[in-house]
């Protein structure tokens, strides 16, 4: 028994010795939240990413790909332990994913300092768009503030005079309020911060009714958003108040809110009906494969895979020259499903942002749909603080 074990260990050691061999598959670690209520976000990103890899026959940029998925459980300490496993044990070439900002904050330094490329497919913390930017980090989503800015800008452009702001009482909620106020110059009648994970918004809705604002702006991700939307509709507030939201009404929550959300506004850089060839093909393939409507998270996952594919192809599968790989990533030479896409100096996208609305499609599924473009080729405000080395 012991002999067999030794032989196996020797064989494994020999195998590891040749890890740099080009015939070896390229390894990609995916760090995603896949347990607890927000697991659906991680699932969308993973499915989007996997779809593109499958379309390429299990390859990216011509090289075989091995994907190692790690569930961060939305706990920064767990994420840190697991990312060390990805870097040191699995020796991954890329880390992709990351749903939440607090997870990104936990794993950002270990990944970038080990000179491994980190492809952010969702969270866009301001620190890493500004002073803390790194040549090893690329985002296929947005900087957090931007989605909220879209709503503030829209409310301002439409001449709304008064707004009621409702967000969870934590950092991202406060950032959301700051993002909204950046372009909105009307009166903010009240800012209400609920506890994170709040279930029942009846008290807050009564306050909205009493304050009589023209618009309510909210950022209530996941189940909180489902509750808010349903209760907003049940109270009949949708008739008198315009509902603007960020990360509240999207394809991850629409299966639960259904008709209650139809007609409510949100902001995004992407929707399933965004009119370009790459997107049409993506949405069709995604729905055929997984049987549900992709969300912006799924599109970001798909684009993350496309981004890696384009860079690996450009360097002909040779990942040893990190500078060359970085330069190839920076070019973003692929047909993004969101249309226009190029990288800013801080490696965050310069892209268009839209006002979107929840609709019921002809096939009975619910999805978001573009109403109008709010920002054209918009970069974030932190890029100027980034000194990319």
């Amino acid at each position: 028994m012991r002999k067999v074990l030794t032989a196996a260990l020797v064989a494994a050691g020999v195998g590891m010795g040749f890890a740099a061999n080009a015939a070896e598959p390229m390894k990609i670690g995916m760090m995603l939240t896949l347990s607890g209520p927000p697991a659906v976000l991680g699932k969308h990103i993973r499915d989007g990413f996997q779809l593109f890899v499958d379309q390429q026959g299990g390859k990216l940029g011509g090289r075989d790909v091995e994907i190692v998925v790690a569930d961060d459980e939305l706990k920064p300490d767990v994420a840190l332990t697991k990312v060390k496993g990805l870097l040191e044990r699995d020796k991954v070439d890329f880390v992709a994913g990351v749903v939440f900002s607090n997870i990104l904050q936990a794993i950002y330094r270990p990944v970038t300092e080990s000179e491994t490329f980190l492809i952010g497919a969702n969270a866009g913390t301001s620190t890493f768009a500004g002073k803390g930017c790194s040549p090893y980090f690329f985002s296929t989503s947005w900087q957090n503030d931007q989605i909220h800015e879209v709503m503030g800008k829209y409310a301002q452009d439409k001449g709304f005079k008064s707004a009621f702001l409702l967000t969870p009482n934590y950092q991202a909620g406060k950032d959301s309020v700051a993002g909204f106020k950046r372009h909105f110059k009307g009166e903010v009648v009240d800012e209400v911060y609920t506890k994170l994970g709040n279930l029942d918004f009846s008290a807050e809705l009564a306050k909205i009714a009493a304050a009589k604002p023209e618009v309510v702006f909210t950022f209530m991700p996941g189940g909180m958003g489902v509750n808010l939307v349903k209760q907003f509709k049940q109270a009949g507030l949708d008739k008198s108040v315009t509902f603007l939201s960020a990360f509240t009404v999207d394809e991850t929550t629409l299966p639960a809110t259904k008709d209650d959300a139809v007609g409510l506004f949100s902001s995004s850089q992407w929707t399933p009906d965004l009119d370009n060839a790459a997107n049409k093909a993506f949405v069709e393939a995604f729905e055929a494969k997984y049987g549900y409507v992709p969300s912006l998270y799924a599109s970001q996952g798909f684009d993350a895979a496309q981004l890696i594919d384009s860079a690996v192809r450009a360097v002909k599968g040779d990942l040893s020259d990190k500078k060359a790989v970085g330069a190839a990533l920076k070019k973003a030479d692929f047909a993004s499903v969101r249309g226009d896409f190029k990288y800013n100096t801080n490696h965050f996208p310069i892209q268009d942002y839209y006002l979107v609305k929840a609709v019921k499609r002809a096939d009975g599924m619910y999805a978001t749909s573009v109403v109008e473009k709010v920002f054209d080729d918009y970069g974030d405000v932190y890029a100027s603080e980034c000194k990319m080395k």
Partner: protein
Amino acid sequence: MTATLVAVQVLNGLQLGVLLFLVAAGLTLVFGVMDFINLAHGVQYMLGAYLAVSFYGLTGNFFAALVLALLAALAFGLLLEFLVFRHLYDRDHLDQVLATFGVILFLNEGVRIVWGAAPLSYPIPALLGGTIPLMEGFGYPIYRVAMILAGLATAVLLWVVVTRTRVGMLVRAGATNPRMVSALGVNIRRLFMIVFGFGAMLAGFAGVMAGPILSVEPGMGDGVLILAFVVIVIGGIGSIRGAFVAALLIGLVDTLGRSFMTDIFKAFLAPAAANQVGPAIASMLIYLLMAGVLFFRPSGLFPAAGR
């Protein structure tokens, strides 16, 4: 801050209180009668909602789904009792906490595998769909009023069962001195099972009622469980009356705190500071209340006799 707004918030508080009562009633009975700490009680609330989702999908009728989900919740509660909990009655509290916490993890993951991670829902029945106009542009949903009434009716029913029936008498006796009850020839194990199944069904009922206004998702019972524990500690462990009063108290304090705490602080603080302090204090309020009650009445407001 108008009188109507206060009235609406009181209604909201009552409605939260009634929901908490339905969960806490089962918890306090199980804790009081069997001296058994059941952390998995919140999971049974979640399960009620998930079962209703499935039965609504099958029948398309809210009331049919309600009845079927209640029966299924009862059956599942009895199954859990048979498989897990009855082996724990003689163990100490730490073992019970450990095992029932394991049940939470197991079932939270289980519903995720069976129903998926995305939040689900089912609609309010058309019969209770309208609103009662209370403020301009704001109606109070009839469904929430129905929830309050259903909760109050359940409370009355429980009160009658506990104070006026033989089973209720045994339950009260069991809460006070289970060994004596056993010595008098009562099958205490069967009594435990009945209490347990009934508690599970009440939690399931709360889950079914909450489904149309809240989202049905994995882990939805965890927050409710903590509040339910606060309720039974304030009310006095094993006391249905205590659970009722404490649940309404918690519902009102939490809702009114959330609604008006920031405004109160705005009266003597800058708005930015009030926005910081208000929500923080409001979310602590019920725990402050619990600490206060425990200081003056260590065994709760209405301690069950003989404990």
